[in-house]
Every structure is written in structure tokens, then in C-alpha cells.
């Protein structure tokens, strides 16, 4: 099916759990509904009810959803999996397109700037997730680098959820102006506008871990 035959989705349910906090929103074309901007940890017990309440606010049923958006990471492995498994469960039987959104792009949107901004998030094991965005567009693919390589990069304005693991002199840390669910809505809205063929999108959410597990690393030493 081509995009000309298929109208763009009206109702998109979006979820990001990459940073141990739940951010969710529902875009209906005319309105945006938000949930979970607080310090709620992604737990299977609360997540589904958070999303249900969003639907209730909008007066929609599950089958009224036209697409899902998944904050696919990189970020906390467990957080990503709870989000992905939840979206996969909601989409079982619905079989709607699954829009994958970089979780670093959402952080970039939180900084709320029109200039180019680097996003740096601690990835543990001496590494950092790094991205570069401008006005909703990725200037480079998301990467995972050792902190030393980050330190060797030319300094720039950056956004992050945590204190960097190393000193980054001459780098300028921008405050996160928007809440994560607001930024999620903005990022999803922007990304949705770029999609020409919704039917070509995957149906199953796939986290972008960007890191092998420690065991896999050890095996290759």
C-alpha cells in the first residue's frame, strides 16, 4: 500500500522509558495529552495504567490508535525493554506502525534550542551515548563512545540528564527547559511529519541498545 492510499495517522500513542522515568503522550491531530512527567519508574505494574489514563483523557479506545511511537534508546536496557514489551503487548492484534524515536533526540528537544546541540548521556562501563541534533534533525547517527573520546571532541553546547563522568572544560551545559513528555510530543510530531510511507514501518518495537552486553564484550577480549 502506498502513502497516497493511506491517510497519515491521526492518533499516535508515544512512550519513552529510556531514562528510568516514564514519559508518555498521545497526539490526536488536534490535541496533545501528556502523562508521567514525574519521577515514576517504569514498572510493568504502573505503565499500562498510565497509558490507559491517557486514552481515557482523550476519550479514545485502543483500536482508535493509528500508530505507536517508541523512544527506542539508547538508555537503560531494562527501561527500554519494559517500554518495548508494553508497546508490543498493546500493539498485539492492532498491528499498527511503530515509529522509532531516538531517546537522545528527545533529550535534545528538552533543551529547546534552535542551534545545534550535542546530547551526552552516561552509558556506564566508561562509555557515553552521544548524539548531535539541530531543529529536530539528527546531524549524525547516535553513537556509543568511551568518555576519553568524548573529551577529545571539540567542545560544544550539550544537554544531559546526569553529570558527565569526566570533566568537560569549555563545554557548555544547557538546561533542560521542557519536561520529557513535552519534548517527546514535539519530537514525535516532527518525526511523524517526515514519514512518507507509514506502512513500511516495523510493527514490533526494537530497542537500540548501541552496546553489547558485558558478557559479549568479555567474550571478544
Amino acid at each position: 500500500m502506498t502513502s497516497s492510499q493511506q491517510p497519515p495517522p491521526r492518533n499516535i500513542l508515544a512512550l519513552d522509558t529510556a531514562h528510568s522515568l516514564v514519559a508518555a503522550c498521545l497526539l490526536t491531530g488536534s490535541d496533545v495529552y501528556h502523562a508521567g512527567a514525574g519521577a515514576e519508574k517504569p514498572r510493568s505494574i504502573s505503565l499500562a495504567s498510565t497509558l490507559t489514563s491517557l486514552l481515557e483523557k482523550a476519550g479514545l479506545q485502543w483500536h482508535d490508535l493509528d500508530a505507536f511511537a517508541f523512544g527506542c534508546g539508547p538508555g537503560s536496557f531494562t527501561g527500554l525493554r519494559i517500554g518495548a514489551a508494553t508497546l508490543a503487548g498493546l500493539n498485539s492484534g492492532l498491528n499498527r506502525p511503530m515509529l522509532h524515536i531516538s531517546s537522545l533526540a528527545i533529550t535534545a528537544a528538552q533543551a529547546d534550542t534552535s542551534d545545534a546541540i550535542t546530547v551526552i548521556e552516561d552509558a556506564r562501563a566508561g562509555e557515553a551515548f552521544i548524539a548531535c541534533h539541530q531543529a529536530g534533525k539528527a546531524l549524525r547517527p547516535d553513537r556509543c563512545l568511551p568518555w576519553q573520546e568524548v573529551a577529545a571532541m571539540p567542545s560544544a553546547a550539550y544537554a544531559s540528564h546526569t553529570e558527565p563522568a569526566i570533566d568537560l572544560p569549555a563545554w557548555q551545559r544547557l538546561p533542560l527547559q521542557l519536561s520529557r513528555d513535552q519534548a517527546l510530543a514535539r519530537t514525535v510530531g516532527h518525526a511523524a511529519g517526515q514519514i512518507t510511507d507509514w506502512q513500511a514501518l516495523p510493527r514490533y518495537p526494537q530497542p537500540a541498545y548501541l552496546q553489547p552486553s558485558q558478557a559479549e564484550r568479555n567474550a571478544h577480549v
Partner: protein
Amino acid sequence: MIRLFREEGSSLFVLAIESSCDETAVAIYQGELINGRGRIVAERVASQIATHAPFGGVVPEIASREHLAALPPMVDALLGEADLAWQGLDAIAVTAGPGLMGALLVGVSYAKAAGMAHGIPVIPVHHMEGHLLAPGITGDLPAFPFITLLVSGGHTMLVRVDGIGQYHVIGQTLDDAAGECFDKSARLLGLAYPGGPEISRLAAFGDAARFDLPRPMLNKDNLNFSFSGLKTAVMYTVRNAGNLTKDMRCDLAASIEIAVVDVLVKKSLCACHQENVTHLVVAGGVAANRHLRRQLEGEAAGREITVHLPDLRYCTDNAAMIAYAAFQYCWSDIHGPVDWDANPRWRLVDINKS
């Protein structure tokens, strides 16, 4: 909860999801409300054993990733194979524990969300309870009470089953599980993971009388097990031997297998005697061990004890047993906890406590 209509011909369809360790498994069970019996409509298992083998054991992070990648397409394919839509399901059963937290969360998060989206109740099932009731999947459960020897890589216990949801642990390992003893002994012998099948394979060519390994706890007046000392004895034997020849490996494997099996058989029969019970169920991964099956059946016959061995495929982790256990709850009108989440350390005695 599920409304039951105990009419002739009416049945419940239960979809079950199991992701507690290194097998992603899904199954659909059709249970008849008139008599509590039923059949497996469709089932699928994706084993990760080959994925974990290079690491010498199940790696939780890798297991969790594999579960997430495998589960959603597996459920879709299963429903397709059974020719069922979500609307045709009456309940979703999911293993809520015990197991690896990250692995459990994949199944539980998926089940809860699917249940919410389709308005289907979700029933948390204790992984071990699934094993305890496994003979009921394809046949009839023995009359209550019966004893189950649950023996796997993570567990070795004797449980008296008085009814659905009524379990009393009457014996357990004080240290290592029997399957763990096989895995660790295999590591000492330089064999691949998982150790049980490897040791059995070599044992077939070996002389079990060559090495006199201890039978821990055999003469203790209780139903507990201890396999840690056996592992240490294996280590001493390996160190003493210096360079292990192929023959010695086989002989040692045979000696290990017979030592473990001896203890499992003696203690299980002792449990039946002590509890005055005539039905013994053997479940869990180690129940696939041929030597154990043969010796149990042989020794039980003279004591008027009937041994019930689940189908080999239902000895290891599977979703059919989770579906069956959940159906038994529905059929018996037992209500599970309302507020629950994945619980990696859920204890058998805490079943029915929310």
C-alpha cells in the same frame, strides 16, 4: 476475574507466556469447564541454550534481549497457527516468578499490556507451580496428595501437593541444586554448558564404579539435599588425576551421574514413605535424565509407588505448564492476587498471598 459457565461443551482458551530464564515459550490451552481437562492447541518454544553456551551459563542481559526479540512475533504466529483472534482468548497466563528479573519483565510487561488492550484478565503463575502440575498437561494429575521431585539447574526440592495452590516443601537442597552440580562438575571436567546432557553423554561410555564419589545427605534422617560437597570431591579427583584422559572423563562423568541419581531416587522414595503417599511426580530439567527415570521406575515398582514422568518436552521450561496451571486456577475458582508484578524471588510458600 473470569466468569465461569460450567455448561457442557463450554471451554476456556488460555494463552500462556513463559520467559523466566533461557527459553521463550508460548502456548494456548483449551480447558473444558465440565471436567477440568483439556488439551494444548498450539505451542512454541525458542531455546537460547546455544546463545548462552559460550558464556558457560545463562547471561541475564542477553536472555532479556532475546526474549524481547522473540516473544511478540511468536505470539502472533501462535495465534495464527491456532486460528484464534485475541477476542477468542479468555485469559492470559504469564510466569511472574521466580526467575531472572529482566527476563520476567519482558513476559509480564507484554502480558499486562495485551490484557489491557484486549480486555482479557491476566493471571500470574509461579514457575515452579507449572512444573509441579506438568503431568496434567497431557494426562491426568495423580490424586492429591502426591509428591513432586522438582529438580533443575536452579532448584532441587521435594514438594507435597495437597491441591491446586496448596504446596508444602518437605525437602530441599541446603546448597547447590542437582542441575547446578552437573553444570559445575562439567566445568571442572572441561565440558560444555549445559552440563547435565554433556555428563550423561559421556557417562554412557564410562564405568561408574571407578570413582567412589560421596552421596551427600543420603544417610541423614531428613529429606534435604546437599550437592556442594560432591562438586568439591569432583574437583579433588580432577586435581589428583592431573591430565584427564578421555576414559577418565567418561568414568568420572558416570560416577557423578550415579551419585546424583542415587541421592535423588533414595530421597524421593523416602519422602513418599514418610508422607504415606503413593504417587510421585518428577519434574524440572533434570527429570529428562534417562538414568534417573530408569532407576526411579525400577525402585518404585517394588514399593507400590507410581512414578509420573511428564513428557520430556514438558520437563524443561515450557508455556504449556503455565497455561495448564492457570486453567486449573480458573476451573477451581481460585482467585489470584490483584496487585502484582514480576517477582524474581517469589517463594512457593507465598503463592496465594498477594
